[in-house]
């Protein structure tokens, strides 16, 4: 187990290294550099000034040397500065990551519970009444565009009913838990509605498949009643494939909640990466992307561990 974890962490480090090299390289290959941007915004600068600045920042060096410098600095904990905010990148990414983590964790917990419950209930009688209703709403959830969904929720719950704030991340020193949570209700609802459909379909088909297996027949032949067959025998086996998907979703949601974050003015990781890329804030984009990658890898690792925990045939050694 320890060996397995070490191996996986080593693998993750390798992926991050490769990822940083690729992203750094891609940015380096892009025409123009930060100094060009400064030249554009400051007509008084001469070509000589620009060269001097380039030398000062080491931008006249070959790409590989620059990458090496960046890497050694990063490994010692110095992730450099954001050009736009003129602050250390970690100071920007830290709060964004925290915000996104809150959003995504709540979404995953609520969404997973909901999908598994709905999926199981639908799978007990495939093509039954309940299944038909669940299927309809699942497909509706999958098909609705996120921005439209977000708009509708804002219109109904913030504008019309006035129950919840339309956007923003809440006061920096919330007076109560609810005070900070209420800002998350609508974004989380949007993400849950958008994601629960697919996951429910998945949980349903996984459950139907499991309920057809021989050991389910054995359980019934033993005299187990339906509830026991479903929850004790079928569900743990059906969950194995569901947790893999949830783990994958984790990564996608982290950097992919962009639309939701934009609609609700939440400065999360997705929004930070997006703004950084558009604003030519290369270093911030690079570091934020690496954090998103790391979180995705972590999500997969957790999913694999959960899988091994649920399915004794999978050994993590």
């Amino acid at each position, binding site marked *: 187990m320890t060996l397995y974890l070490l*191996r996986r962490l*080593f*693998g993750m480090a*390798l992926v991050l290294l490769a990822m940083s090299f690729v992203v750094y390289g891609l940015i380096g290959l892009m025409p123009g550099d930060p100094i060009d941007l400064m030249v554009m915004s400051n007509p008084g600068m001469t070509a000589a000034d620009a060269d001097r600045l380039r030398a000062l920042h080491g931008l006249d060096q070959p790409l590989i040397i620059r990458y090496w410098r960046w890497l050694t600095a990063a490994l010692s904990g110095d992730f450099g500065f954001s050009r736009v905010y003129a602050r250390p990148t970690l100071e920007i990414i830290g709060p964004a990551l925290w915000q996104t983590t809150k959003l995504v964790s709540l979404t995953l917990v609520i969404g997973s519970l909901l999908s598994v419950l709905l999926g199981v209930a639908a799978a007990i009688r495939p093509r039954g009444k309940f299944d038909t209703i669940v299927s309809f709403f699942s497909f509706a959830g999958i098909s609705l565009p996120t921005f439209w969904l977000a708009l509708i929720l804002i219109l109904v719950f913030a504008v019309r009913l006035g129950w919840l704030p339309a956007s923003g991340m809440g006061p920096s020193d919330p007076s109560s838990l609810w005070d900070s949570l209420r800002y998350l209700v609508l974004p989380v609802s949007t993400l849950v509605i958008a994601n629960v459909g697919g996951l429910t379909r998945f949980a349903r088909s996984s459950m139907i498949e499991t309920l057809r297996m021989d050991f389910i027949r054995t359980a019934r032949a033993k005299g187990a009643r339906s509830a026991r067959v479903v929850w004790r025998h079928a569900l743990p086996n059906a969950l194995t494939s569901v947790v893999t998907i949830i783990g994958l979703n984790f990564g996608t949601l982290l950097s992919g909640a962009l639309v939701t974050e934009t609609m609700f003015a939440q400065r999360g990781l997705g929004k930070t990466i997006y703004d950084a890329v558009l604003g030519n804030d290369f270093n911030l984009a690079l570091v934020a992307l690496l954090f998103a990658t790391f979180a995705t890898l972590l999500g997969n690792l957790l999913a694999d561990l959960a899988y091994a925990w649920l399915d004794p045939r999978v050994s993590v050694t």
Partner: protein
Amino acid sequence: MPALLSVDGLNVSFPLDSHSLLPGRRRVVHAVQDVRFEIAVGETLALVGESGCGKTTVGRAIAGLGKVPKGIVRLRGEYLSDLPRAQRRAARQAIQMVFQDPFSSLDPRMTVRQILQEPLDINGIGTAQERNARVADLLGQVGLPADALERYPHEFSGGQRQRIAIARALAPNPALIVADEPLSALDVSIQSQTLNLLQKLKRERGLSYLFISHDLASVYHLADRVAVMYLGRLVELADRDTLFASPRHPYTQGLLAAVPRIGQGRRRRTLIEGDLPSPLALPSGCAFHPRCPLAKDICRQKRPEMKPLASSPAQSVACHFAEESAA
């Protein structure tokens, strides 16, 4: 009789931890060790043993599927491993395989015509017209109606599918067919129909078979010679009548005694105790000693070599007590 296929020192092993970045002990399963046999033209050699004994791995190695095995495989005297790639492929045409499960071994999206024609196309056999005629001819040989050509595998029963699989194996005109448990997915009455078909093809085309099976009654019916495998090694090899009448290895004897037979009624069976040991931790000495009723100290210490019996040289046995253990 000249040997069509001769196999010597065949070894196949599989690494257990296949993709590890970290260095470390690599555990290896020795699935097949030191297997040696010959198959003559027109001869059927049966390879029997319990699941996990390596018989399927031998079959796949000879048919050129999976990993390239260590050891010598000669086809009509030519060393297969020495041939350049292209020629090796041509030589491989002469060895075809029929698999156990006719439900999963046929591509469900291909018509019977496409299934039968593919090996001809791949190996560039004949003109388009000749291929057409050949496909129709193959169908007749395995006893399927001509209108089967444009239909898909799922439209056929298990027995008919196995006929399609046999026709496909026949398409490149092989000299040897490796048949891996070709009957075990079929019903009783279909098994005998298939056995008769294999027998007829052998008679008509002078085919050789490597017939891999756990069903000793079908083996008795089809085979000329029988090789018994246990935990990756051959333990006994003899012609059919000798092997069934006077098996010398205690494992062969136990295997034969365990076969249920009609007309014996409820009986006490002489049992081979216990289970097959894990191939990861092979017993020392003779691999069969933990289950063997005759095991002595020497069996735990020294592995018996496969050698011909002094009294009947056509029978080879790997047992320290082969000479005295006539059943």
